[in-house]
């Protein structure tokens, strides 16, 4: 079953007076419970593509469908879709500094309308899944990079999303922590059936993934 489909996605940026062609009408199809890896040279537009698929940015042209329903970053329910159906993990963790691990994870659940108590309980459960029980009261600046990334992963999953986007989730971690995070992702995909679209530089990790794309000249090319 097709989870996410992008058709003819194009995006140009205007930098001072020259046009940068980033996406030139590319297609992508992600089936449910797949783990899709996207690689490509630095600056080729991987993050841009992920932002567009995640409704954080609008394409110049092209359409996106989630389970057959067209979705749009400018529509009023875009925030709702990001909250309920999508999860996000970024290279730089992007945790809220003023909130502890448990609270950071609980935020999307509270936005979804779950009570504070239920959201916190659910956050604790998910953090437990990532072996973070002893860290739930810690603030981001008290956590290691790998731990912060596990908190981000937990936050992405709290509302049981249909798809999780990860932009270089291991980009800032040492090999040991990279591997841990990667194993967590694979486990979530294989054991729980979560769908992932992951952008990575790490060719080793990418090679262990069943579906690989490379973004080249604004077009995604299947690599395996």
């Amino acid at each position: 079953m097709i989870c996410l489909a992008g058709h003819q996605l194009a995006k140009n940026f205007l930098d001072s007076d020259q046009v940068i062609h980033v996406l030139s009408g590319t297609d992508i199809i992600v089936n449910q419970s797949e783990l899709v890896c996207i690689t490509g040279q630095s600056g080729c537009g991987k993050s841009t593509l992920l932002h567009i698929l995640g409704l954080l940015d609008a394409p110049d042209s092209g359409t996106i469908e989630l389970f057959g329903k067209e979705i749009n970053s400018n529509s009023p329910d875009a925030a709702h879709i990001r909250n309920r159906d999508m999860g996000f993990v970024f290279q730089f963790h992007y945790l809220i500094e003023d909130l502890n691990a448990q609270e950071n994870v609980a935020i999307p659940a509270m936005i979804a309308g779950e009570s504070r108590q239920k959201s916190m309980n659910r956050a604790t459960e998910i953090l437990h899944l990532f072996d973070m029980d002893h860290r739930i009261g810690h603030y981001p600046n008290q956590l290691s990079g790998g731990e912060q990334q596990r908190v981000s992963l937990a936050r992405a999953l709290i509302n049981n999303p249909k798809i999780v986007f990860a932009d270089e989730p291991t980009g800032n971690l040492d090999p040991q922590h990279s591997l841990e995070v990667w194993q967590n992702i694979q486990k979530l995909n294989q054991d729980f059936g979560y769908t992932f679209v992951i952008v990575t530089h790490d060719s080793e990790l990418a090679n262990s993934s069943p579906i690989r794309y490379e973004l080249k000249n604004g077009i995604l090319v299947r690599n395996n």
Partner: protein
Amino acid sequence: MRFTILEKFYISKYLRDPRRYLLRFNYVFMILGIVISVGILSAGLNLFEGYQRTLKSLLLDSIAHVSIFSSNSEYIPISEANRLKTVLQAHKEVTAAVPVITSSVMAQKAGAVRGCFLKAYDKNESTFSKYVVSGSPKLETDNIIIGYHLAKEFNLVVNDTLSIIFPQMNRITALGLYPSERQYSISGIYKSGYYEYDRSIVICDFETAGNLLLTEDRVSKIEISLLPQFTNQTEKIQSTLESELGDDYIVTAWTENNAGLFRLITLEKWLIFIVFSFLVLIAGLNVVSAVSTSIVDMSSEIAILRTVGAGTVTITRIIYSRIAVIGLFAVLIGQILGAGLSYLAIKQSIYTLKGDVYFIDKLTIFISPTNQIVIFFVAAVIILLCIRIPLRNIRNMQIIDVFRRN
């Protein structure tokens, strides 16, 4: 106003740990601005309110609330005055009805002459005695009690003598006006705090005044004091007495002569309020810039919240409530500072009021709950509006731009 779960979550965090969330460096100058401007506004109003109230109570304490004059003669015979006194004292609003002789006279000491106000009472009268600060409040023939500032000006103490001159219009001689001049021993010093009185009053008994003014067995008027709750309703009492006493008497009330003064003071009070409110407005400009900076500082938090699906309205309300809590708290601190400042103002002795300009020469404060509520609301409205202005930028913030900048 209903809060979403996320809003409630944030607000409860702010309130539970204000040190962590609210006392940020960004906000320090904003808080200072609010505290100082509200402090000055509040101190100004406390002092002005104190002035107004002190002046009013001094005035009401030292002047007659209602006076009765004869309509066809300058004087009321003493027997008639005593009859009226009994009639007037029967009214429940009246605390005292006192026949008095009043006249303009001059005091002279060592060549210096000063216009004074002579007031004579029955020997047994004691309504003024609480104001006698030295000497005896008891009236004796050929003794006088004089005002505190008059005594100071002439360098007089109890048992000194002072000559009082009464220029008599009906005794013009070939040499001009023939004044009646007599020496009196000072038996007491009078101090009401009402500068105008303390500078000019000379008190004596009927007999002394009669000898000086060459009058006998008659008084100028009857002065009536009212219970405090009736001092502002003189018109009603005035008309009751007018119809009761008939055409032979004229009834006047203190409000006729002084109402304008108090209207003026009230007007000044609100002018001060408006002028000082501009200080709060300037503090509001500070708020605008502090909030703008803090939005930039919080941009990554805002972007994260939006990424995971929070709406801009919710985010705006979260930040708004955070800064509003700080702002309102600062207003309250400012009001406390205002009380402190006004207290310092009355404790200091560097600056004192000029009695001849302001009627009283001592600063007093009155912290009126009504004024404090008005200050709080006006300052709160200004501050809350100023917080709103920069918050509008949150709506236009692009998530991607924030992420790219980091």
